[in-house]
């Protein structure tokens, strides 16, 4: 009995030690861009887009599992692998896309900071520069690991959206009905929304982040089982939070016919419908999520770009040793913060289109990943099982199909 308990305890401790890559990735996933997309989707389409979360979830799990496996087997980052196997041109295309999308995403994070603080009555001209500087300082001064843990703790506050949603008294039977029989008109707007939801749930840069954190933790094949649990928990958390954000906005804003453009609008609009507390909870969650992602996103982006093109990178390097890395990192932050501070900047457009670029970049990254993970030279006996390939390739085909229709629809409907 005692032995058993000890064994269980040991296993639990081991799980806690491994815990992280999947759950952190999952939390960063629900960033300001995500919250905005989900809120707008809920406000405009009610419960009718909830079903998209189911395929998103399946693809998310399958992709992250592939990343984890590649990280364990090769010990190399995804950027490294793409560069070494796909050559410079493909790498260049992917990383230019990633860079543009991530500058857009970081801008969205700062929009989230600005918006959420405005709910509490703080002007964006104060909140954005302060947060931007804090984030930069945190990373460059190397206290990043502490920050990551604090944020992880705070990201539990994302579960507040569940509370926020329940305060809006959602209609459960209607939700069930819409998931099975969604009522949806296919047009440019709804397609862009669907790609946006998928693009924000399965953001391309996360594949890179996931693989790196698996390597950084030094995980081995024997930890694989625990890692799977970690990934599963992370993905469930992501999708559950997304679900409740959509529900919160659908059951209040959509029913009252209020159209919103930003996550901030959602927070403000919730006030008369679900109470001041629900509104503040919503805003606080947005604030935390925005800072968390604003910290990780520019850092991760600078890191992968440098990794792919062979520049020195890493926060343990000095400025002179890794100039490209720091310039890139600082550049993304400054640019993103600056865009927000331009009066009347088209924030919604930036936010939406960076999600759409994500959605379009995703199949390219996915194709590279599936080819890599099926390469016997790289993966040895750990290549994909048929089921992984079927899900992976279907996702690619569907995403490319959706993107093509989205691009062609304006001409077809004329």
């Amino acid at each position, binding site marked *: 009995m005692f032995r058993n308990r000890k064994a269980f305890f040991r296993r639990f401790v081991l799980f806690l030690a491994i815990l992280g890559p999947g759950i952190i990735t999952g939390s960063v996933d629900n960033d300001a861009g995500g919250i905005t997309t989900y809120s707008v989707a809920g406000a405009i389409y009610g419960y009718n887009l909830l079903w998209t979360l189911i395929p998103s979830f399946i693809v998310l799990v399958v992709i992250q599992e592939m990343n984890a496996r590649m990280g364990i087997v*090769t*010990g190399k980052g995804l950027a490294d692998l793409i560069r070494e196997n796909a050559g410079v041109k493909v790498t*260049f295309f992917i990383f230019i896309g990633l860079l543009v999308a991530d500058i857009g995403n970081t801008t969205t994070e700062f929009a989230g900071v600005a918006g959420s603080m405005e709910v509490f009555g703080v002007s964006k001209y104060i909140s954005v520069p302060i947060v931007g500087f804090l984030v930069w300082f945190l990373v460059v001064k190397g206290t*990043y690991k*502490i920050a990551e843990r604090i944020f992880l703790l705070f990201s539990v506050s994302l579960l507040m959206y569940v509370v926020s949603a329940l305060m809006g008294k959602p209609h459960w039977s209607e939700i069930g009905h819409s998931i099975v029989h969604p009522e949806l008109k296919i047009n440019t707007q709804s397609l862009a929304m669907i790609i946006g939801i998928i693009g924000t749930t399965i953001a391309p840069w996360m594949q890179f982040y996931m693989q790196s954190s698996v390597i950084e933790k030094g995980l081995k094949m024997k930890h694989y089982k625990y890692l799977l649990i970690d990934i599963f928990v992370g993905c469930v958390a992501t999708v559950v939070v997304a679900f409740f954000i959509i529900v919160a906005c659908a059951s209040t804003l959509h029913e009252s016919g209020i159209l919103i453009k930003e996550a901030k609008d959602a927070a403000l609009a919730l006030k008369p419908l679900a109470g001041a507390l629900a509104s503040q909870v919503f805003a606080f969650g947005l604030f935390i999520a925005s800072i968390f992602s604003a910290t990780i996103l520019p850092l991760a982006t600078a890191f992968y770009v440098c990794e792919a*093109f*062979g520049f020195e990178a890493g926060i343990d390097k000095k400025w002179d040793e890794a100039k490209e890395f720091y310039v890139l990192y600082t550049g993304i932050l400054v640019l993103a913060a600056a865009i927000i501070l331009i009066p009347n900047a088209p924030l919604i457009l930036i936010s939406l289109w960076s999600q759409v670029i994500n959605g379009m970049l995703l199949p390219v990254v996915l194709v590279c990943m599936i080819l890599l993970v099926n390469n016997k*030279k*790289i993966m040895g006996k750990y290549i994909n099982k048929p089921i992984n390939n079927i899900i992976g390739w279907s996702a690619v085909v569907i995403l490319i199909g959706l993107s093509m229709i989205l691009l062609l629809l304006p001409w077809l409907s004329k």
Partner: protein
Amino acid sequence: MTTFTTFFLSRIIGRKVFDTHGKVVGIVKDLLVDPDSSNQSLGRLLVNGIKIKCKNQIVFYSFQYFHIEKIKGKIKVFCNQLVELSIDQVTSNLYLVDAVLDKQIVDLNGRKLVRVNDIRLVSLANGTFTVAVDIGVEGLLRRIGIVKPFKFILSLFGSKIPAKFILWEDIEAIDFSNLNIKLSKSYSKLQTLHPSDLADIIEDLGRKASAEVFSALDEEKAADVLEELETDAQVHILESLTIEKAADVLDKMPADEVADILDALEDDKAELLLNEMEKDTSQEVRELLDYPDNSVGSIMSTEVLSFNENKTIEEVLNELREKKPDTETLYNLFVTDENDLLIATFSLRDIVISSPEARISQIMKPSPIYLHDYQKIDEIAENISKYNMLAIPVVDSNEVLQGMVVIDDVIEDLINRRRMNK
């Protein structure tokens, strides 16, 4: 030919090869170089094979009958005769595209990993050789095919794309994880690097490459490198080696370092290794492993030299010459009685400034500061800084000398703990 032609690898990959009649033979896919040719040619490697794709078939030809010319700024590949390369050469040569281009290599001067964007070669009368690797932005732009417009735009502002080349003699290609064949490479240039630098490089490499590079090191070097690696990497390396080889490397390391590594391994694996190691070493390690994690005993070094107080300096010197101890061991010397009880300390300095006839009892410092093996680690730093010591002796509950804690170990421990808090 009296002239020479320099060209970039990226400029000839994908080019058509023409025979003497001007007919297309195929398309260049890769160049093969002889990794052992560096001795005769200033560290450059001789290109002796070419991989060509013709009619959907991959063929390897000897490069001897190929030549490269620059005609009106364009690189052209010609061949006089097609002679297939022997299987032996196909498997033992280094593939430039497969194993070097886009891969990480070791920059021996910078002592770090860099990524290869392009390779510069030169065609001379006596053959074609690798000259340098391009790791700069220019190489990247050239590969993407936008270097000329870029150069033009920059020239308008009077600036240039900074070029970054490393000569071939200053690099070592190491990542062959994409190849099925296993090269019997010695990585001889890597042996010249400091173990700490080598450890950093190995940590940055992928799984396969790090294991391969490590197993190519000789045992002494391997032991030094293993000591410098982070725990994760140590575990990975040890798991990738055979038990015998791993035990051989561990035998060359100080017992306290071995104990630290084995602590991180799974119990069964550690037991296997201990059984395979030499008896005296493994005995010491086992004793160290018995100490609790945060006790002085768990980080102390057991390699200490102790002498009887009646010995002369002359005798001590003779003994030191015979044993050839490590630096750390040599600096801090101890005096014990016939029961191994610690009674005093003396240092290398004391020996150097004393006459050979003097006895230890005349120069030793009695009633030394010491630690108990079950004391907490936290108390070491305090003592070391308070008494300005480089090392502190460690005794057990009967005051019998067990080992010493060197300032290095303390610093390592402090840094690790600081990192944990980050």
